[in-house]
């Protein structure tokens, strides 16, 4: 499958003097489980916000599924699902009310919305909280609901900003297998996470952003081949990440300065 799901060209976003994302050229093929990594403040969330229509780029182009986002935003949004930073929930609705609301916003008919809401609540183990409003959900429950809302319309691309943060191990396992099944069916998943082990286990391809610039992009094997390793040694994603971002030495020297702590 060679269809390009996400393509950006010189994508740039500035906040006053600060360039949060700088001339980014990103390519994600359809059906890939794509991990988007970077240190804090590198520009990950800004990129996701631009790719999902929550933030306008300063310059550059974005195409999702071959459609120009700036020219046809509604057409693109119909085909993507998003779990944004902060989850974007209406906290005064119950879980089922929120899913019905989202279903209708995505143009699903009432019967389909009802059916899918029920199935998703069941899958996410939220069905027994029918009368509980979202404000009273725990963080993990809110995360599961946000995920349910992101997939209710059967998106072709799914953007997930830290999807497993605060989700218990049982639910996380179920979610991971759900996401894996979705990619098997051709759905593209674009995921950011600080937990590199999760990214390594789930993602086939990875991009690393540092100080607003894309510094690496490719499959895990391609990234491994780009850095030096001893004979027979297979570098972990964490080692690749640290090697590319180049922070390990600096961290070590900073630690050495804190002699009173050690």
């Amino acid at each position, binding site marked *: 499958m060679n269809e390009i799901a996400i393509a950006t060209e010189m994508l740039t976003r500035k906040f006053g003097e600060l360039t949060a994302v700088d001339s980014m050229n990103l390519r994600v093929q359809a059906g890939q489980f794509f991990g988007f990594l970077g240190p804090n403040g590198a520009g990950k969330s800004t990129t996701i916000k631009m790719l*999902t*229509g*929550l*933030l*306008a780029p300063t310059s550059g182009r974005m195409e999702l599924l071959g459609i120009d986002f700036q020219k046809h935003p*509604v*057409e*693109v*949004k*119909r085909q993507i699902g*998003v779990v*944004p930073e*902060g*989850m*974007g*929930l*209406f*906290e*005064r*609705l119950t879980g*089922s*009310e929120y899913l*019905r*609301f*989202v279903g*209708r*916003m*995505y*143009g*699903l*008919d*009432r*019967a389909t919305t*009802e059916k899918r*809401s*029920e199935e998703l*609540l069941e899958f996410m183990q939220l*069905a*027994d*909280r*029918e*009368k*509980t*409003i979202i*404000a*009273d*959900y*725990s*963080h993990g*429950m809110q995360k599961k609901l946000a995920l349910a*809302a992101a997939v209710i319309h059967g998106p072709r691309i799914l953007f997930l900003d830290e999807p497993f943060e605060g989700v218990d191990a049982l639910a996380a396992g179920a979610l991971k297998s759900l996401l894996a099944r979705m990619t098997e069916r051709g759905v593209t998943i674009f995921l950011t996470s600080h937990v590199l082990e999760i990214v390594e286990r789930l993602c086939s391809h990875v991009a690393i952003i540092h100080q607003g610039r894309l510094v690496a992009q490719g499959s895990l094997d391609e990234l491994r081949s780009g850095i030096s390793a001893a004979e027979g040694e297979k570098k972990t994603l964490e080692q690749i990440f640290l090697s590319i971002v180049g922070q390990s030495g600096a961290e070590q020297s900073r630690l050495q300065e804190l002699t*009173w*702590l*050690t």
Partner: protein
Amino acid sequence: MADLIPFPGVFEQLKAVAGLRWLITKNSMRRKNNRWDLIGIIAAGMFSGLFVIAMCFAFYAGAYTFLGKGRPSWMALLFWGIFVYWQLIPVFVAGFGASFEFKSLLRFPLNPPTFYLLGLGYGLADFGAISSILWILSMLAGAFTVRPGAVPAMLVVSALFVLLNLTIERLLGSWLEKILARRKTRELFLGIFVLSMVSLNFLNPLLQRYGNSARPRFLAIVPYLSWLPGSLAGQAVAAGSTGNLEQFWIGVLSLLGWLVVASVLLWNRYAAQYRGEELSEGTAPAKADKKTLPHTSGELWPAFVPPAVAAVVAKEFRYTIRNGFSFLTLFLPPIMVIFFTLQFTGWNSAFKRHGIPVEWFFPGIMAYLILILLSPAYNSFAFEGKGIQTYYMAPIRFRDVLLGKNLFLAILVGVELTISLTVLIWRIGLPTLPQLVSTLAAGVFAVTGQFTIANWSALSFPKKMEIGKMRGQRNSGIAVWTAFGVQLLIGGVCSVILLAGKWTGNPWVPFLAFSGLTVATVGGYFASLNGLDALAETKKELLIETLCR
């Protein structure tokens, strides 16, 4: 292993916390886009300062007069005034947001006595405490001027009184914090509070009617107040100033007794917090709800209403009934009609004396109700919070969101005006047919005429509000002025048109004029939607940043 630092001293910790509180106050004035708020804070500060200074003179004059003119027992009135003010003002100033600022200090190595002292110190820095202490000092100055012999007694009583007020205020605050820590109780409390404030409107008519008969019952309660702190402080000062040492010591020991009881209770509350009492909200209920997801199908709305618009209307309805404050405002219009008609027709004849005729009262009250009901439209995204992102992520045009919000509000206004009209007819009767239809047409014009500008204001000057909180829950300054200007303009136009009916001698002229204007404003409203859709895209970042903060 790192070296252990020496245990910090109590005064060092108190000093650090005092510094922290000052920094929080200072930094809160440094936020971006907050100039209007800063002007508001300065104005409020000046007003409060003038109020405190004026009251200092009043308390000085009070003590001077009571002690100088042989009425020392009246000093109790001054102490009572301070007591009530000191205990009530924190409730109004603090609002109903759960604040864990003080309790969060527990993560530092504090011992229980230090934590207790910090609690009292926090109370001393409150506006209510500072102003009350200034007033007590003014009373001391008054006593010193007119009767220096009373000063030692005043000093002892005042010191005890300050400590007692401080302890009771912290105790009430701590109980209040416990009650308000949970969302449901906080919203219930806010609802009761708002309802009490609205009920104050009925105080005057009730006093007019029942004042004389209730007076003896009220006076019968007064002797029982003599065992409360305000009276005890007054009695002790009075006795001390007249040399009645026995009565003086009874008063002082009674105050001391109150102080011991309040301190023990406060110590127990703080001890519970120190042990790690859990007050936080947001946890899921322990007991699962019964699973009864409804199976429904088919469309509820006519086909010409887009699903997204219908979804927004449904969401707005749920948000309104789950927001205690908004929900209560639904009851306000008929309550206000009852209140105004009580003034107008029955117990109090103020309106009659001023000769306000029914034909002006009817459009007047309708205009007032529209004013109340439409004000939230000028900041209609206030309660969306992070949910605003859903509107921008969904494959819809923002005009659908605005349409949904406006449609819901129009339905709400329609229902409210119908109920209010029914109450009005019950209270004062039906106006003439031309008056009725002209006023209703004016109502439709006023509502549709405001929607376009209200939508522009909501997109351009959003201000986040949180359900169940009072502190900082107001629209942005520009939105308030916009609403005021538009409502003044529309009110002026409506008044001139209604008067035109009188001038021309044709009672149907206003109806025709309002009908024409309504057609124009409805046309203008739909024409504006595309422009507002584009504006929503331009203001996207502002809205998301403001509401998701």
